[in-house]
């Protein structure tokens, strides 16, 4: 009997600990998803221009899932300590529903991260940079974002300045190839914002132009957001799975 009681107490302790962790992780998930939803600087206008809002949907689901996890963890702790079958049954069913929602959020975030290929940004940049259409405000946003990106990160194009040579673009329609093999922002600029050596920049002499691509500068922050939502949610789900299995085992052993 004493050994069985010890086993019961150990199982109760583990379940309480598991629920505490779930509660804390729920709070963290909510905070992180609020940050992702509200963080609109950096390369965000480029994402908005791709018209792919999956990461937003995943983050909104994550906010509510986090709050639900916190509330359910409290319910779970009370149910385990009081060994109440009703409370634990309610806990298990609601946790399953939350599990399903969080699963949807994780998979959506992972799919979104998958879709942000260099080619996506390349096509958008070629079609919209410097498009000079006064009606479409989003194109101006794209141009301003790219200029800021290239100036701050000392980079050019998505894969490199050769993007502007390999493909025709909206930029090429208004800027001749002889004068602008690539945009002026790709040149090394001095303090006033004009190229240090314009001929060197046009010829591609190293030191006078930016030879790196900007894809790393774009994908870094975006991946950080997406990984945060997808992989953190995945970790929470794995932990929740174990706690739920333990709770079901505990529930089925309680006698009336």
């Amino acid at each position: 009997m004493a050994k069985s009681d010890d086993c019961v107490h150990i199982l109760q302790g583990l379940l309480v600990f598991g629920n505490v962790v779930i509660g804390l992780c729920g709070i963290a998930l909510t905070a992180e998803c609020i940050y992702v939803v509200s963080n609109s600087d950096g390369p965000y206008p480029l994402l908005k221009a791709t018209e792919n809002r999956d990461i937003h949907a995943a983050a909104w689901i994550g906010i509510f899932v986090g709050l639900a996890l916190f509330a359910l963890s409290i319910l779970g702790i009370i149910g385990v300590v009081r060994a109440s079958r009703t409370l634990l049954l309610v806990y298990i069913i609601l946790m399953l529903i939350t599990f399903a929602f969080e699963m949807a959020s994780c998979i959506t975030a992972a799919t979104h991260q998958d879709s942000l290929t260099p080619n996506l940004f390349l096509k958008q940049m070629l079609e919209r940079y410097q498009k000079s259409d006064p009606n479409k405000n989003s194109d101006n946003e794209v141009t301003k974002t790219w200029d800021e990106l290239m100036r701050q990160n000392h980079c050019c194009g998505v894969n490199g300045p050769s993007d502007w040579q390999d493909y025709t673009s909206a930029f090429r329609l208004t800027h001749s190839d002889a004068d602008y093999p690539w945009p002026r922002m790709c040149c090394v600029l001095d303090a006033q914002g004009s190229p240090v050596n314009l001929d060197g920049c046009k010829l591609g002499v190293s030191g006078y132009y930016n030879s790196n691509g900007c894809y790393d500068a774009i994908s870094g922050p975006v991946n950080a957001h997406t990984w945060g939502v997808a992989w953190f949610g995945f970790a929470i789900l794995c932990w929740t799975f174990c706690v739920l299995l333990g709770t079901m085992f505990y529930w089925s052993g309680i006698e009336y």
Partner: protein
Amino acid sequence: MELPWVLLALAGTGVAADLARLPYVPHVPPMALLGKVTATTFALERPRCVFDGHADASDAVWLAVAFANAAHPPPVPSASGAFRNPQSQAEVPPYKELPTARSYMTLETAAAAYSCSAQSPPVLRVGGDTACREQGRQDPCNGPLPSPGPYRVKFLLMGCRGPKAETLWSEPILLRTALSPSTIDPAPARPGSALVVIASILASLGAVLATAVLGALGAKVWGSLCHQGLGTDTFIRRSYRTHHIPPALPQPLPPGCGCSPPGLCQSAPQSPAPCQRIMEQFGLDGTIKGPPRFNPPATGRDSFN
């Protein structure tokens, strides 16, 4: 006395072969420059020390550019093969006539710029001047090239009376052709490994959880049905040991049950089994249920009564 004959012979050869063929081949600079060949321009390495010994101070070096037409079969002469050196300044083919004449000359520079001691950039850019194209000036215009080519070039040293020296023709230089961005496919080639891992693991976890919950609920329902059947229904769903007690006189207890003097019990070795059965018959072995407590569910029956 041979000297006047030598001088005359030299003068004769000077008049007949006034065009020196320099063994220099113009080429695109070998160093790594991203912009050395673009869609409308290309760069050439500046010839250094090539014209020394042939050029005077007043001479000019021109660059002749002609279509190479490398794809055409030999019977059709290439533009570079058909190029004739202009014999005077007025015959220089201008930039505007490139589409029709299939060649032009540009980059008129003083010969001193190509001397050994000149401090000048090591690269010449052909096609870099966009201003002269619009204005249509008659000056030598280094305008952008209208088509990808391929082109051949050679340098021509022009004096006051005509060409004095020329280099060899270069290899064909093909300019870059840009593709349309509609050829770019933005979709990922195959689903990333992260997506596959997350989706597969989460799907399996969800399936296991759903199965476990359904199994637990099903077992509970099954157990509650069995419990009701036992109370009200005579249909036997599980084996139930009947205790049939024949109406007989109580038998004397066999020796060995509950005997106090230990010495007498040792002669009768068969004691524990009959005692145990009688104890079980009358429920005297202590199976009394206390307050609700946790039992490991060994079978479905034990937990749901």
